[in-house]
């Protein structure tokens, strides 16, 4: 039975802000009377995460992903609900808890700008009280895995975004955290850097059984890393499960793409299935999952001048988009 590392029950967080209207006259009015408005960022969110899981949080901007992570890191205190990470209530900010997790925010730079990453690593070592031996082992392993040994003594401001991100990652893993919270870790990075980081996280998670919670805009991050995905919209969880089940629930169809050697008339194809798209020498069929094998067999056995046939999923992005527009 796998250990429950994170347990979240009914977490709710509201925040208030003042309505600001344009114009000089309104600025004067605001001196005396301001309208206070509320927004519920996180609304009764509940979920559990087991040891070694990598869970992806997906959702539009302002959906509540970052706020949830901040509550689990102890930065914010919820208005309602409870949560336990490694047995601790995060917002009590106990030192024993803080030594066991790490938070990496993709858009915020924690390293000293004018100094080499190594200096920031050493500072973290002091702050987290990492013994010399452990520090050296971790550092060597991380530098090798992320291939950054040639840049750790260059000032951070001279590094590329990808190198900076990798250094930030090293800095947060030096104290061997059991839980890793990642907020948009690959944002703004080029494709190669993104892949490097994804591969690294997957390997690291396998080796160390670190529990990882990750928020991202990029579907590739989620698909590559997470077996489980939680979709948040307007502060509420609207899906929590595996990506496969997601597809089955919201994508009951698969796509069959057929390429032809000769021109084919459209009405000849209608008997094989629902036509999604029709072009010269190409047609896309939308077929329910369990009917795909039969449909493909029928097409291949027919008189159609088939050059090639392709069976694929409806792309995940449009599935997600569909969920949100519901």
């Amino acid at each position, binding site marked *: 039975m796998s250990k429950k590392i994170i347990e979240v029950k009914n977490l709710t967080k509201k925040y208030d802000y003042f309505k600001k209207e344009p114009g*000089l006259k309104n*600025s004067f009015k*605001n*001196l005396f009377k301001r309208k206070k408005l509320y927004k519920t960022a996180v609304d009764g969110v509940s979920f559990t995460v087991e040891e070694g899981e990598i869970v992806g949080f997906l959702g539009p901007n302002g959906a509540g992903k970052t706020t949830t992570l901040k509550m689990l890191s102890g930065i914010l205190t919820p208005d309602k609900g409870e949560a336990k990470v490694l047995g601790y209530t995060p917002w009590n900010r106990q030192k024993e808890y803080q030594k066991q997790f790490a938070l990496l925010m993709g858009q915020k730079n924690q390293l000293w700008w004018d100094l080499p990453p190594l200096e920031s690593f050493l500072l973290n070592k002091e702050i987290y009280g990492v013994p010399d031996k452990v520090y050296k082992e971790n550092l060597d392993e991380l530098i090798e895995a992320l291939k950054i040994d040639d840049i750790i003594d260059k000032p951070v401001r001279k590094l590329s975004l990808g190198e900076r991100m990798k250094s930030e990652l090293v800095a947060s893993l030096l104290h061997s955290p059991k839980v890793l919270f990642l907020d948009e870790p690959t944002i703004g990075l080029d494709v190669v850097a993104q892949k490097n980081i994804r591969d690294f996280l997957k390997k690291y998670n396998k080796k160390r059984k670190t529990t990882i919670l990750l928020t991202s805009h990029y579907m590739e991050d989620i698909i590559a890393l997470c077996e489980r995905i939680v979709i948040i919209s307007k502060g509420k969880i609207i899906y929590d499960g595996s990506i496969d089940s997601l597809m089955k629930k919201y994508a009951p169809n698969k796509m069959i793409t057929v390429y032809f050697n000769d021109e084919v008339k459209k009405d000849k194809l209608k008997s094989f299935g629902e036509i999604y798209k029709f072009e010269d020498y190409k047609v896309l069929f939308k077929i329910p999952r369990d009917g795909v094998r039969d449909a493909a067999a029928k097409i291949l056995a027919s008189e159609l001048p088939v050059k090639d046939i392709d069976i694929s999923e409806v792309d995940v992005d449009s599935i997600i988009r569909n969920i949100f527009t519901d």
Partner: protein
Amino acid sequence: MGKYLLILKSSIQRNLIYRFNTFSFLFIQIFIFGVFFYLWSSIYRSGGQIGNYELGELITYYLVVNFLILIIKSDVAWRVGDEIRLGTMTSILLRPISYFGYIFSRTLGDIVFSGTVYSASFLFLFLFLNDYLNISLNLEQIFYFIASVVLGAGIYFLFFYIIGLTTFWLGFVWGFNFAMHMIVSFLEGSIIPLDLLPEFIIKISGFLPFKYIVFIPISIFTNRIELTPNLLVVPFCWITVLYIISLIVFKKGIKKYEGYGA
């Protein structure tokens, strides 16, 4: 012309939002004035005298100094420096608007706002402390005073605008800006009345425009100086010179400007 008026208006709006700032500055200057008030009063009470100043003149001096500081002083150098350093100057340069006009309108907005807000408080202070001060003003004095304050403000603005522009070459303005502020505060008479300083400093000050920012206007106000047109002509010449320098510096600096950051 309308666009500059709009900038001025939004500058005032900004000031309204940062009202905590406004009251903090007022509190600070009144506090500082209070300390100097007691400093001079306690000295004169025990029979001392500073230079050829009477207590009333000295207290008036510091009262007006603090008032002028509130109205005239702005963070032009900082603002310009940041816009160069962070590259936000680019967005203004791309528009059909003169950068100088933009900065000038913004600062004017600050001054209009400060002038309005702080005049009320200082008027109150003046009335409250009437017994200590012995102010006698005639129309000519008032005219000269207001004119010299305006000219002094112009000199302050242009000088620190140029300091801000040095960011084109220095990359960073805070150390230099800080040093310049110190020096100018001293040479303009904000710290001690200029005529109390050693001879050689007074001589140096004579060659520089700074005394027209604080010392001359206050001397006019306290009637310690003869009213001649020179008092207004000289600072006006300084403004012209500084303006021309600023245009040259800006032209040269823009060439170096990479629009980096942002």
